[in-house]
């Protein structure tokens, strides 16, 4: 069951842009799952590559944004590499944003 807080957490994540590209983390397909227990958010996150240069920035942005959300007391991020990210994980909006920016996806 999706709780109200879970819905707000998804919306908050959709406000965070990738530091290198004009696309948000949800449309980029980096979020593998969210679990909310009380005030704790457990988040399963991947990156587009193991050599991603922006991992610290992305995790910092997620913590800062989610901790600003009323009802969120702590954020636990689990990095997931399986299944690996591919461009198939882009949402249609994410694909459109990257195409508009000049990347072929």
């Amino acid at each position, binding site marked *: 069951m999706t709780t109200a807080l879970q819905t707000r957490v998804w919306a908050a994540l959709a406000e965070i842009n990738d530091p290198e590209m004009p696309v948000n983390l949800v449309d980029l397909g980096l979020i593998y799952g969210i679990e909310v227990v009380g005030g704790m958010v457990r988040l399963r996150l991947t990156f587009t590559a193991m050599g991603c240069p*922006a991992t*610290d*920035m992305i995790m910092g942005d997620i913590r800062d944004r989610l901790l600003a959300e009323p009802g969120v007391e702590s954020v636990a991020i689990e990095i997931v590499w399986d299944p690996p990210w591919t461009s198939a994980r882009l949402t249609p909006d994410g694909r459109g944003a990257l195409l508009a920016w000049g990347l072929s996806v």
Partner: protein
Amino acid sequence: MESSNSVTFETLLKRGELIESRSEMTPDYLRELKHTLIVSGDTELISAPAYYLAARKAPSVNAFMTGIAIIQDELAHAHIAYHILEELGESQEALIFKRDPKAFRYPYAFDVPLESWTELVVANAMYDQAGFCLLGDIHDQCSYGPWKRGLVKVMAEENFHLRNGRNWSKRISQAGGAAREELQRAVDWMFPLTVEWFGLPDDLKQHSAQLEYRLKGLTNDQLRQQWLSTVVPFMESIGIRVPAHRDGDAYVLDYPFPCTFDAPAKRWDFKDPCTWDSVMARWRARGPRNAEMVALFQESFSKFQVRA
């Protein structure tokens, strides 16, 4: 109807239209455009060895990868400028691999060695901010269409460099102690070097062909103020002192501008004002790391040439 022949080049420029090809340009415009592109390409290119020599001191693998990604971006930005220069009749190969180190036209700041991760991230926070101001102005105002459009991606990537600089500067300041003192020392010598990056003050620069041809839109002092208005509040917000303060609508430097700089010691003498002629002489002579950095990308070039 106005015939295209009667529309002079100057009229096109004044109307705010974009110049798209070499055939439309006057020889003077072409020369000034090439000069501006060379400064931009050289600045992006030299930042790669300058940053690389410091990125080796990264405190973690993740931090190193961020540093390397920034260097890759800078090389791609240099390529945009040199590629346009090639379309305008210059040889990329000659520009990059055949020029004397002293003939490169990047800001003097890069000639002073960045020797630690701290100095690298301060460069990301201050030098890349200078690049952001200068390129942002060209992106907004430049009359040459291909360059203006090529800068869209460059601006987004420079933003990533700035974030790296600011995030790490903040983190190092929060660590306190010796780490914070090292950060303050880096800002102490790098801040005035970035202030002079924007060149002669407007009251000494009577004529600017770059402004006349709308290659850029803002004057040296306007760009310097823009830089100060972002860097001063940021440094103050993380508890780092800078020798400038806000006075009404403008930022004022707390030291004589220009004054003398001891490059090997990385030290400014705020008690020893100097003339712009002596600053220009220092710039022309280039600084300590000029030859080493140019050699980094030039030395292997001829070795792997296949002879015809």
